[in-house]
């Protein structure tokens, strides 16, 4: 059976075609059912008529290779595939949710909504990048929002997988992507840069927040190359109520040089989730586009431009981890604080694009009283923040690489594990509760974090002799004073 003969009611390998939901240039999408599969499904059938764009065929092969390897809520679940010998098709989960595409027509959207969409898509990208895949065609029509809230990336026909042959790179010389969204390095034919997806997300957010496209909708190669030298109008120039931090984030995504963008999707998601801690630079203040002279200078520089060093997604991600230092600023002994700093310093030194989040947990009762302000009237929250900054001062990290967070939770271990999961943390460094009687009394936070966290956890100890020499406070005294959660 050829693609042209497909009709509602046809059955392919047990999949019954119910309804054609989309007829595109590259493929047709059918809603399908199958006796053995309960979930709602979509079948993608490539258009393979003579004279059709060969990129459609290769793109289909690419998606057939990549989709089955992806897991998690941020991609449509793979169900089945049929190869070219009979009838090529790809069956995947029908994502219950809505496409971001119609929202473009409603732009400009409320600031909070744009930031929330950005954080969701960045989270989805972080998850896909972690699985060795760069999407390379991020745009509103390829982003779905599940009813449960998560962003789903669809259409992996232009994607690149770190560990698989790149059929598209080998087949075609022209840049592949979608005009308004394509990253500068993609225009040069680079397909191995995960931060290309951050550029495309930046374009999407720019459009959603201003209602305008930052680089128009070019159709020629020359038009695509304009983004090398012509910077976009700053969002605040088009919409003055865009906060500085959001302009900072969007313009950082739109940097021509990938190194000047966020180092990873996880770091971008982190900033979108913590607006108050986004370090503001000149980008945040920018009021208009660069003058003609600057643009002309950049134009000259852009001539004959080629992309430099290449690296895999995995390499890029491993260079840019998010590290959490979990610190008990109230009860931590100086020796342990120092040991933690040493451990963190080593990690940071080896990964120049790493970011450090200093976290402490303020224990609050599960239910009840507002205990945010203590007896002396000093804000306990602020006190901890000061403690965190004090601990971190000696690390000497620049502002853009470090953030501080006081979590308020009844269960410190749970709070840390959840924080790490929500923020795509790669590595937690924390102290062990050194004193055995206290450990018996309160249980070990680090042991629980080690067993429950979804990332690497380093537990730092001060050698036994030193701890003894410190003179540890008795548990009774501590418990009376304030509930400790971590070391000692």
């Amino acid at each position, binding site marked *: 059976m050829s693609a042209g003969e497909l009709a509602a009611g046809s059955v392919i390998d047990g999949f019954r075609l119910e309804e054609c939901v989309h007829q595109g240039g590259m493929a047709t999408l059918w809603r399908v059912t199958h006796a053995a599969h309960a979930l709602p499904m979509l079948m993608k059938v490539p258009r393979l008529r003579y004279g059709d764009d060969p990129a459609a065929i290769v793109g289909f092969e690419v998606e057939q*290779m990549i989709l089955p390897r992806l897991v998690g809520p941020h991609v449509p679940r793979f169900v089945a595939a049929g190869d070219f*010998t009979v009838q090529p098709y790809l069956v995947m989960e029908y994502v219950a949710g809505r496409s971001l595409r119609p929202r473009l027509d409603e732009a400009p959207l409320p600031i909070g909504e744009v930031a929330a969409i950005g954080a969701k898509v960045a989270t989805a990208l972080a998850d896909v990048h972690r699985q060795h895949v760069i999407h390379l065609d991020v745009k509103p029509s390829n982003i779905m929002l599940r009813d449960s809230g998560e962003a789903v990336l669809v259409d992996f026909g232009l994607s690149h997988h770190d560990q*698989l*042959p790149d059929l598209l790179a*080998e087949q075609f010389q022209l840049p592949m992507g979608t005009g308004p969204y394509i990253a500068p390095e993609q225009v040069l034919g680079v397909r191995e840069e995960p931060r290309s997806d951050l550029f495309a997300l930046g374009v999407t957010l720019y459009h959603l927040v201003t209602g305008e496209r930052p680089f128009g909708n070019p159709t020629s190669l020359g038009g695509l190359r304009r983004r090398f030298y012509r910077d976009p109008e700053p969002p605040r120039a088009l919409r003055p109520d865009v906060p500085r931090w959001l302009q900072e984030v969007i313009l950082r995504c739109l940097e021509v040089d990938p190194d000047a963008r966020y180092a990873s999707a996880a770091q971008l998601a982190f900033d979108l989730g913590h607006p108050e801690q986004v370090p503001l630079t000149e980008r945040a203040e920018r009021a208009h586009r660069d003058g003609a002279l600057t643009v002309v200078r950049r134009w000259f520089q852009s001539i004959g431009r080629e992309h430099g060093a290449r690296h895999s997604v995995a390499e890029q991600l491993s260079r840019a981890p998010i590290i959490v230092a979990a610190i008990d600023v109230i009860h931590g002994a100086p020796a342990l604080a120092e040991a933690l700093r040493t451990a963190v310093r080593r990690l940071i030194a080896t990964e120049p694009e790493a970011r450090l989040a200093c976290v402490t947990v303020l224990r609050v009762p599960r239910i009840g009283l507002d205990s945010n302000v203590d007896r002396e009237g000093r804000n306990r929250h602020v006190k901890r923040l000061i403690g965190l900054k004090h601990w971190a001062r000696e690390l000497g990290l620049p502002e853009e690489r470090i953030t501080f967070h006081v979590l308020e939770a009844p269960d410190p271990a749970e709070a840390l594990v959840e924080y790490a999961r929500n923020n795509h943390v790669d590595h937690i460094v924390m102290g062990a509760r050194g004193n055995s009687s206290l450990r018996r009394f309160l249980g070990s936070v680090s042991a629980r974090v080690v067993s429950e966290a979804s990332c690497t956890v380093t537990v730092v100890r001060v050698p036994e002799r030193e701890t003894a020499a410190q003179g540890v406070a008795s548990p009774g005294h501590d418990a009376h004073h304030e509930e400790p959660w971590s070391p000692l």
Partner: protein
Amino acid sequence: MLIAFLTDLHANREATTACLEFAAEQGAERYVFLGDLVGYGADPGWVVDTVCRYVAEGAMAVRGNHDVAVIHEPSKAMHDSARLVATWTRDHLDAAQIAFIESLPLSIEEDDRLYVHANAWAPAEWGYVMGPMDAARSLRATRQRLTFLGHVHEPALYHGDWVGKVAAFAPRTGVDLELVSQRRWVVLPGSVGQPRDGNPAACCALYDTTRNVLRFERVPYDVDAAAARVRAAGLPAALATRLERGG
């Protein structure tokens, strides 16, 4: 069916043992030896006997240029050290072992696969497949969809599309690669007994015919022992160093 591919064993007993054990642990149901059982290494007799035993139990094996060199006069085109080793090897094989080598075919076709030591266009002339051009030439010379080759001691993978355009892909160890069925593929697992890509670990590949999935593997083995035996046998010291350095 999971097929283990071993090629260029080169009389390296330690590497061959390690790869066969590894393949068995992975659940290999069939073994294919792509030639050059002997040459360079110190244990030609043991390796030939082992392959002979596997073939008796259903494995497949083809001959390589080093195998031919011990059954005929070594070719003048061979390097000096290779010729010296060929002579040494012949002196260390018995009649039955020579007869087994003589019985090996140049190539074997099975289902949609071709097994041959050097290339498909002129298997007995031992031309190397060193890049996409050579791979394309080899693909043009066979109707089989998958070609498994030895001869070149580094792992490599080539794939050709429907118009015959061929591209190379640097495979990673331990990653499942689907050999997409609308493409044709040339697979070079890399050498068991004398890897030359700077990594001394032995090379082999596993292909799952049901899932159409290929995996390149590296198997660490006792390189020091193999190198010591080369030296003890009085073979050129450079051959021992080569094992230690992986190239």
